[in-house]
């Protein structure tokens, strides 16, 4: 029909779909799911790094980390706002997160065990996020694409900070260097798994590609990430924990060992090391803050009565 045709023409022409435009229900649902999961990931992602703010080993690093975790809260807010343009409220989405009906990125279900993990998350996890997200800046849905532009700019800043932490550690005392290598060893495969299941098993990918929500396949992005990391690891003088990692001159890419997708599925299902901790933490913060939100609402209601609009 007419609306469907108009929508398809916008997609075809690489134009943006905007909130006021008609869109197919599946497109809307698919976007809500993806944007919400992305927003939830920013909010849950505050925890593993937030775990080291009070223990950051220099005041400068403490300030940088605090600002980074603050940025993540900001990203969460942009993304919830983008999702709201699709007709769901932030409160509904938060409820879906807390009740476990919507997911967040599984990467945040691993623990941060040492200060070097803050570096490894910045370098690898934010690095993987950027590889995933840069194409989303050209996503067909306008509000999401614009949120991603802003977010990607900050993420690449965060990635550089993570790289700097690891660089300092790798060139520091033997204990610092060991800490850095250990963190990279632990975060490497979980970071590769961030790109999702292999293309052969990916359920939503094809349609997302057609709609230009997604622009590259999981495996393409994963390869791009590996190629990028190998270069940077050599500058860090740290190794990646994959004995089979080597340049393939024919493919003009690095060959590498795939992450353990069974482990990924376990973590997605709720059986990662920190799934319960992360969601309980979020639930506790939400429920312990309920009286504050209620007070703010009650106060606003009183004000509205006392000072009607325009007075």
């Amino acid at each position, binding site marked *: 029909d007419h609306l469907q045709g108009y929508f398809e023409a916008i997609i075809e022409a690489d134009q943006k779909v905007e909130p006021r435009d008609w869109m197919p229900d599946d497109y809307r649902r698919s976007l809500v799911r993806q944007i919400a999961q992305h927003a939830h990931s920013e909010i849950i992602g505050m925890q593993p790094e*937030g775990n080291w703010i009070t223990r950051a080993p220099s005041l400068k690093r403490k300030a940088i980390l605090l600002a980074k975790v603050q940025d993540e809260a900001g990203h969460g807010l942009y993304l919830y706002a983008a999702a709201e343009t699709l007709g769901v409220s932030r409160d509904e989405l938060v409820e879906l997160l807390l009740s476990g009906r919507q997911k967040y990125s599984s990467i945040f279900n691993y623990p941060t065990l040492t200060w070097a993990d803050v570096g490894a998350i910045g370098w690898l996890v934010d690095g993987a996020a950027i590889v995933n997200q840069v194409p989303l800046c050209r996503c067909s849905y306008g509000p999401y694409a614009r949120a991603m532009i802003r977010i990607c700019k900050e993420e690449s800043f965060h990635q550089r900070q993570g790289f700097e932490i690891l660089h300092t550690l790798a060139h520091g*005392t033997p204990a610092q260097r060991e800490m850095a290598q250990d963190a990279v060893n632990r975060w490497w495969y979980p970071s590769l798994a961030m790109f999702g299941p292999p293309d052969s098993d990916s359920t939503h990918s094809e349609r997302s590609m057609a709609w230009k929500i997604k622009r590259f396949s999981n495996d393409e992005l994963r390869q791009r990430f590996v190629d990028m990391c190998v270069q940077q690891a050599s500058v860090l003088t740290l190794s990646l924990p994959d004995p089979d990692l080597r340049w393939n001159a024919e493919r003009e890419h690095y060959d590498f060992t795939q992450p353990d997708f069974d482990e990924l599925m376990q973590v997605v299902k709720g059986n990662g090391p920190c799934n319960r901790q992360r969601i309980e*933490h979020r639930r506790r913060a939400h429920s312990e803050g309920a009286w504050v939100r209620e007070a703010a609402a009650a106060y606003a209601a009183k004000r509205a009565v006392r000072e009607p609009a325009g007075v």
Partner: protein
Amino acid sequence: MTDFEYVLGLGDDALVAAQRLAQWAARAPEMEEDIALANIALDQLGTARLLLTYAGELEGADRTEDDLAYLRDDRDFHNCLLVELPEQDFAVTMAKLLFLSAYQKPLYDRLADSGDERLSAIAAKARKESAYHLDHASLWTVRLGDGTDESHRRMQDAVDRLWPYTHELFEGEHADLRAQWLATVEAVLADATLTRPADGGWTPGGGRQGLHTEHLSYLLAEMQVVHRAHPGARW
């Protein structure tokens, strides 16, 4: 010349306040507040770094901001007791911030006009931030005080508990700042339908002389653990 311990005390106030505020990261009552508390923590931390760096220069023993932050025990910290008290309750956080910012604001105003150029520059930057902290804390004090019955009770309780600790802020050379502080705080409490606690009775102090509550050494143990585990390392 400006006194090393005086500047250190101001820096310690800001540093310890920042550390307590940072404990809210990822657990504030709403997401906007996560951002706001991080902002305020960053401001306090920024001021702390400038003050500690300057204190180190005044001392002349080559101690950096990190040496001062990470390698002193609680007996050598000169912050007021108010900032080191635990804050598990958001009402306590807001009452602390109200009392602290209503003190830091006029204090920085004064220092901004002082003859010490370095201190004056630091204070000129910090006082703008303090004005924002004061606004934020006032807003929440009023919302909570004039919100629900529960929030009123919690906010009044926080104000009552913390009030005795505010006397220490006006010890010695800052005594005359109390009038302005009281004017600010009393107006906010009145707006918030809260009762201004009576003075007198218990007036805990000692922080400026390094005599702290039992809470500070735990805070420092956590703050310093990584730095101390790697003596001499760069970060």
